[in-house]
């Protein structure tokens, strides 16, 4: 299948999540062939094995993933199956976004009673806009390392993106200012980074420990706790079951806000468009 080498050979990027595919597009557009292993409607903790996944991983020059153990359920198996030495951990072709940001929810001590926690901290780092810039810069450097010839291309695209994203961020910060200090309830700790960026207080998380469905006593406890405090909204991430959040909303009258988990890359969405929607949804609660 490699008989016809394209005239302009491009760098093959294998992104574990669509947000990193979208970021690679921003920085390396035109010089990269990008594939995203998951869609915005999939839970990136678990994916089903398809032949194309292995084929794409075999051919990849650069793997771009969240890291912090988010893909621990499938990526090690995939890398072992693919047998591509360039993208093994520790190689320049293995890029983990979580290495370049300050992580939250890092457990002080790790024991099993704490649930599906990640030893390396919360992996959903893309929900804080500042993190996108930190990862963008690191990704630009990594791309230049792998593909020295196009260093200038990556730098100029990065600079353009950095400028645009910084402007957008200033606008968003203005829009969400009024939410600072408000109380919210979440389902899974997916939006930890977003919440800390805005400065909202997470009063309760519906999952008693990450990855475990709420029991009836846990739900009752939360309901009682909420009756004493003013709560702005219940945050929900699109790919998890919304029945616990709907139940709590009916019981308490607090609105449920469903945020798109990430960029719909396969549907042609970009990072700025996605985050624009997140902000719109958040600010729909007055």
């Amino acid at each position, binding site marked *: 299948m490699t008989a016809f080498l394209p005239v302009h050979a491009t760098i093959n990027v294998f992104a574990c999540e669509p947000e990193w595919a979208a970021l690679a597009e921003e920085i390396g557009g035109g010089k990269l062939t990008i594939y995203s292993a998951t869609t915005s409607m999939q839970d990136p903790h678990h994916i089903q*094995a*398809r*032949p*194309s996944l*292995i084929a794409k991983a075999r051919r990849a020059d650069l793997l771009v993933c969240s890291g912090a153990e988010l893909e621990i359920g499938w990526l090690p198996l995939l890398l072992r*199956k693919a047998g591509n030495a360039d993208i093994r951990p520790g190689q320049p072709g293995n890029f983990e976004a979580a290495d370049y940001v300050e992580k939250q929810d890092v457990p002080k001590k790790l024991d099993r009673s704490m*649930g599906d926690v990640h030893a390396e901290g919360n992996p959903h780092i893309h929900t804080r806009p500042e993190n996108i810039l930190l990862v963008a810069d690191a990704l630009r450097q990594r791309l230049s390392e792998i593909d020295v010839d196009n260093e200038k291309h990556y730098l100029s695209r990065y600079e353009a993106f950095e400028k645009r994203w910084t402007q957008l961020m200033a606008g968003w910060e203005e829009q969400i200012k009024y939410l600072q200090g408000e109380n919210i309830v979440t389902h899974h700790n997916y939006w930890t980074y977003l919440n800390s960026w805005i400065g909202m207080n997470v009063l309760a998380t519906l999952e008693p420990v990450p990855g475990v469905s709420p029991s009836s006593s846990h739900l009752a406890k939360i309901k009682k706790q909420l009756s004493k405090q003013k709560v702005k909204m219940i945050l929900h991430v699109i790919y998890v079951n919304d029945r616990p959040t709907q139940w709590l909303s009916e019981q308490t009258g607090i609105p449920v806000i469903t945020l798109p988990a990430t960029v719909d890359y396969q549907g042609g969405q970009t990072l700025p468009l996605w985050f624009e929607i997140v902000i719109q949804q958040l600010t729909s609660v007055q």
Partner: protein
Amino acid sequence: MMNVGDMADGLDVSILAPAFLAGVIVLLTHIPLGREVVKRGIIFIDLAIAQIAGLGVIIAFQFGWEMHGLEAQIAAVTSALLGAWLLHSIEKKAGEHLEALIGVSFVLAATASILMLAHNPHGSEHIKELLVGQILWVDWSQILIAAVISLIVVFVWFNYKNKIGNIGFYILFAVSITSAVQLIGVYLVFTSLIVPALAAAKYQTKPALVLAGIIGIMGYFSGLIASALFDLPSGAVIVWCLAISALVIPVLSSNLLTNIERQS
């Protein structure tokens, strides 16, 4: 986003061959054992045994064993054997209610796992490893181990079927299921066991095994190709292709089968 290049991508022998081989190894034991299961009318026994094997691992885990590789395997096989012994003892007393009792043991084992893991979600990774093997992830060392187990089981079954008795059947069954589930997952195990055997149930042993074998091999083969062409999860596609093969192949080969039957 799909183009021709994407479709051809997955059609790679080095990706599909290990999965196909894993399927053939599972069929080797599951076709003869499946015929027995269908004959005895204990269709859900594999789900019950697999679930009990998973439960065993969780119990060991709750006792604080650090479970990796071999230890988890030992816990799984031990509990599968205990489960097989339990179902064997029930069989004598239950009579016509056997299938119902097997169903109940499946539900009890499955919900016991949920209860034991209620405060310990890390264990869920372990039960997932045991219950939802994915056929595309198999590697050669797993295939080798499964092949050795399959060959031993098949050898004992065809040579000593009448000597090992009822309990012997349950032991062979428990070992095969525990090995197969980790390789290809519980849905494919169930389908490989029941579907070819069911399609061939009306024939005598020899033509039935030939027919079930062809159905099984065609199901895995076409399933893997379809999974590559349409970029779909392999396990689920193979389940459907096995079912379609079971509908189509007996019709196409009915003359051939009557001939085999006349000869034997």
